[in-house]
């Protein structure tokens, strides 16, 4: 008997009669949008994320204010809305990780966007920050979820750099965890990986003192738009 056959035989012999749990269907929260957005902002900040809220016309300014140096972005993140942005740079051939950061236009801080087109881990490590969109954000817990969808990139991209700036349009904020899980179902069925982020990394392993920033970005900026 293979291990599989034996284990399944033992399961069958255990004689548990199948039951099906009742599931409550997920309904959209009746709460007011403003309350939901405000709670998301509050709870995300509770976890030591820096949270700012801007109107659509203020995003470029807000993002520019938060970033400097080499900023990693997903290959499919549109950059034209960041009207000050210089074109994205490619890694150099000669062993230098990247060409020097171009001088800032119009007095903005020096930012060079780098597309994550199959960069090596060492190249990811040589960046200063990563900028992404998100799939859904959750007010109940102050969580942002990435699902490898548009503008979010592969998982290593938001893991290796020390600073992560995530843009959260208000329409992507839901109230509860069940609502978020429902919204993510399509991505999951497509086989896309999910990363749920609730603040920068933390540990309480030494005498239960909470210490931020062990692995993963030690600085998390959340830009709520709308």
């Amino acid at each position: 008997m293979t291990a599989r056959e034996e284990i399944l035989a033992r399961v069958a012999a255990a004689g548990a009669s199948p039951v099906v749990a009742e599931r409550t269907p997920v309904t959209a929260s009746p709460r007011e949008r403003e309350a939901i957005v405000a709670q998301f902002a509050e709870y995300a900040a509770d976890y030591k994320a820096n949270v700012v809220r801007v109107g659509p016309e203020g995003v470029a300014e807000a993002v520019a204010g938060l970033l400097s140096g080499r900023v990693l972005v997903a290959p499919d993140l549109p950059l034209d809305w960041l009207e000050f942005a210089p074109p994205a740079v490619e890694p150099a051939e000669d062993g230098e990780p990247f060409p020097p950061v171009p001088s800032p236009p119009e007095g903005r801080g020096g930012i060079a966007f780098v597309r994550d087109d199959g960069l090596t881990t060492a190249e990811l490590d040589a960046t200063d920050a990563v900028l992404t969109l998100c799939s859904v954000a959750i007010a109940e817990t102050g969580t942002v979820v990435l699902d490898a969808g548009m503008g979010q990139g592969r998982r290593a991209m938001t893991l290796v750099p020390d600073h992560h700036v995530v843009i959260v349009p208000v329409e992507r904020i839901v109230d509860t965890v069940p609502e978020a899980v429902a919204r993510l179902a399509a991505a999951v069925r497509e086989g896309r990986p999910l990363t749920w982020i609730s603040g920068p990394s933390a540990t309480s392993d030494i005498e239960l003192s909470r210490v931020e920033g062990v692995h993963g970005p030690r600085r998390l900026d959340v830009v709520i738009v709308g």
Partner: protein
Amino acid sequence: MSGGGVHPARPFREAAQDTLADAQMRRNLRHATTTIREKRKRAVAELPDWEALRVAGAAIKDEALSRLGELLPQLEEAVAKAGGTVHWARDAEEACGIVAKIAQAHGAWEVVKVKSIATDEIELNQALEAKGIHAVETDLAELICQLGEDRPSHILVPAIHRNRAEVRDLFRAKLGADLPTDEPAALAGAARAYLREKFLTTKVAVSGANFAVAETGTVGVVESEGNGRMCLTLPEVLITVMGIEKILPRWEDVATFLRLLPRSSTAERMNPYTSMWTGVRKGDGPREFHLVLLDAGRTDVLADPVGRQTLRCIRCSACLNVCPVYERAGGHAYGSVYPGPIGAILTPQLLGMHDDHANTLPYASSLCGACYDVCPVRIDIPEVLIYLRGKTGHALSERAAMKAVAWAMGDPGRFRLAIRLARRGQGPLVHDGTIRWLPGMLGGWTSVRDAPALPNRSFRELWKERKEGRGE
């Protein structure tokens, strides 16, 4: 060497005598458990329908356990379809063999690990070590335990028995870290530097799993530090070892458990990072994914209609944090990687009640029931404790005594007489209103407890006098 297996080396009472004497451990543990108890209450109070959530969690787990025969193949198919490989392991040895074989096939002499109690249970690190493969623990507490050659003493905060000065000394000695201070931030910084190099260069990673969804083949790891994300994303090969009871039927069920687990374990609304992945994905994460489904006694527990609920456990450790016995005796007294109330029922069921050390664990309880109150999946731990106690062998003298007591209590007249006799006979044993010593078999009770003396009137007698006094 982290990992400690599930075979207690001593009976609980004997082990506890030693651990009770460790004042530092008790201080750390009392501080930790008291802090987290209060936090948990607040976290749980935030959700309007916590009880309904517990009921839902228990129901989903019961469904999963009752349909394992269907769900395990469904999970296997979904994972395979997404490019992963599923392996089945009947016992610890087989599981370790599978992991070693995969690592060796990739020429890996070092692997990075995310904390996984299941891999501690099967003593994976030792098994790999014996084959020349070094498993680097990347969870800060597990790293501390590994460097200190210790066994974890708590499911969630495994190094709680160590204080910061000890950790600093350990890091200095074993990592060569330059640490002038023992501030937790500096200690974590030293660990980060050491481990980052490992993450960026190691080829094979081993993890556990908090859940796997049968419907979609999606596996999830809930963590705080980011070492999970590192291990699950950067290496080329990922091997996940998961107990078969961790399966969830549907994708939507993830919502219930993501609400129950963080609030019950770290008492947060949500833990910092949760990763979920399905098989492999080109250009994003490991090229190869292996899921090792572990039985190792779980099908035995499944076969027991009363004990089966034990398998609902989501390893939150809420029960540890409220248990008066655990708080004082500490995790090491249980001799297993599963300590506390859940350990007291899971360890003996995995091993079988014939195990002479494990079968003392159901007695490591005052049956206060606090564990049942906090369990997010409503495992009736007291019920299972008593049930398991019934399965231990009892000496003829004890059985005879119990029969006698049952006889005396079986009739009101006999009971009243028994009380009167006891009251008269207790005289020489009473000092300052308490009885600190009883002879013979009864001494088992008084060796660790003081009994109050029987008062000169029982409640019934007082009540009767009162009624007669009022002429009723």
